[in-house]
């Protein structure tokens, strides 16, 4: 099968690969590029574990063809911490004990990041809405909601 070139930035770094046409971004990231932080929980767009950010927008990488990402800026959870310092969302998830098995966590953090990027001071309803595409089977969601609200508060305090 003829390979298709794709080129995009992943967490700020240039990536270029030849892939089979029809390869999802999830597979390209995990199997070709080696970023396994997006998880494959359903491969049908219903669990949110594969959530990434493409050009500032929330996307399900299992439903996104890699070849449509040419020139795009892709962000994943593995790229969030800078210089060994955790992102405020990562810190908040730790402090709130918002992870158990951890499989949904990278997708949750991506969904929360898009929310906070657009809505720095979200209401609880905003957080609920933002996380509603992500399935968690362990936590009962409440600690995750609290973590996102806490991260938002700490961001706005740091901004002052």
């Amino acid at each position, binding site marked *: 099968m003829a390979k298709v070139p794709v080129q995009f930035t992943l967490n700020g770094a240039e990536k270029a690969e030849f892939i089979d046409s029809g390869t999802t971004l999830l597979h390209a990231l995990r199997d070709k590029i080696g970023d396994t932080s997006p998880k494959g929980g359903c491969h049908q767009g219903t669990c949110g574990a594969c959530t990434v950010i493409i050009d500032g927008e929330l996307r399900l990488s299992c439903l996104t063809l890699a070849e449509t990402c040419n020139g795009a800026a892709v962000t994943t959870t593995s790229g969030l911490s800078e210089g060994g310092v955790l992102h405020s969302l990562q810190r908040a998830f730790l402090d709130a*004990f918002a992870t*158990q*098995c951890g499989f949904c966590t990278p997708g949750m953090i991506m969904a929360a990041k898009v929310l906070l990027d657009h809505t720095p001071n979200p209401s609880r309803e905003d957080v*609920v*809405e933002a996380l*509603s595409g992500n399935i968690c089977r362990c*936590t*009962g969601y*409440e600690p995750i*909601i609290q973590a996102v609200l806490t991260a938002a508060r700490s961001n706005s305090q740091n901004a002052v």
Partner: protein
Amino acid sequence: MAIRRGRGVAAINYPTGMNLGGDPTQALVHSTPTGNFMVTLSSVDLGQGMKQIMAQICAETIGVPTDRVVVDTADTDTGPHCMGTFASRGTHRAGNAVIQAAREARQVMLEVAAEELEVNASDLETDGEGNILVKGAPQRSISIFDVALSAHFKRGRSISGRGMFLIPRSYPEKETGAMKPSTCYAHACTVAEVEVDDETGEVTVLTVKNVFEIGRALNPKMVEQQLVGGSWMGISHALYETTEPYYPNRDHGGTDFNQYLMPGPGDLAQTEIIVLERPSADGPYGAKGPGEMCANPQIPAVANAVFDAVGVRIDTLPITPERILRALKAQAPN
């Protein structure tokens, strides 16, 4: 047609560990040359926090801070046998094995320290912060760092221990059913408050107040994780979940998360958790298994609350709007 409120209660108990016992778990503990401790197991962490809890149990037993303990688990080339992670057995079975192994290692550690301090091992105690002190004379002390170095490079002692925990298997007596299913039980009582829309049959769980007795909360934040998540799952079981909605008919089974329903972050009941601790006689530091039982009492509590609200009994799970409406219709005079 109206929104009707009701509340219901349920109380339960739950056995810790594999039914009827016979489910062994082993652990090995050894120190590194600088006095860190390795716990080697083959137990599985499903996300409940097995590794962290085993580290805390080992640390408590040896007498060091938890961050001095590393847990290496679930590699069959290195870890000794564990029956597996199920039946609320992980903390109880593996925890006991870790305690036994850690005690043996601690004994060697104290013997080496005794030689260094020229006292009897029985006169020594740990301060929990990485030092070994002479009881009653804490100015005479040695760090565990130095004890481990001495054991390795000077005295040729292995600071290590083996642990094995097995509750002998019970075989039910054929005619009477006399048996010993478990050695300890966790307990719970839940009060649920619901609203039922008698026009749509939709149930909203407003609050759940859960009281759980779990022996001992070894790490209260991690216990809270399990209990909150379990309470959510119990409500989910009560109202939403099945792979065969018209059981025993095999049709209409869900194949994705759009069809297999669970409460989302917007559907949460206000959840209160209260924990009591009655230490179990054979639990590690008194712990029982909280992982499974925490999802049980919400189901009948919600079912009883639905009856309290609209006066119909739904004795078939899940308690769907369809079932409520059919029951209301059957109950209505003409």
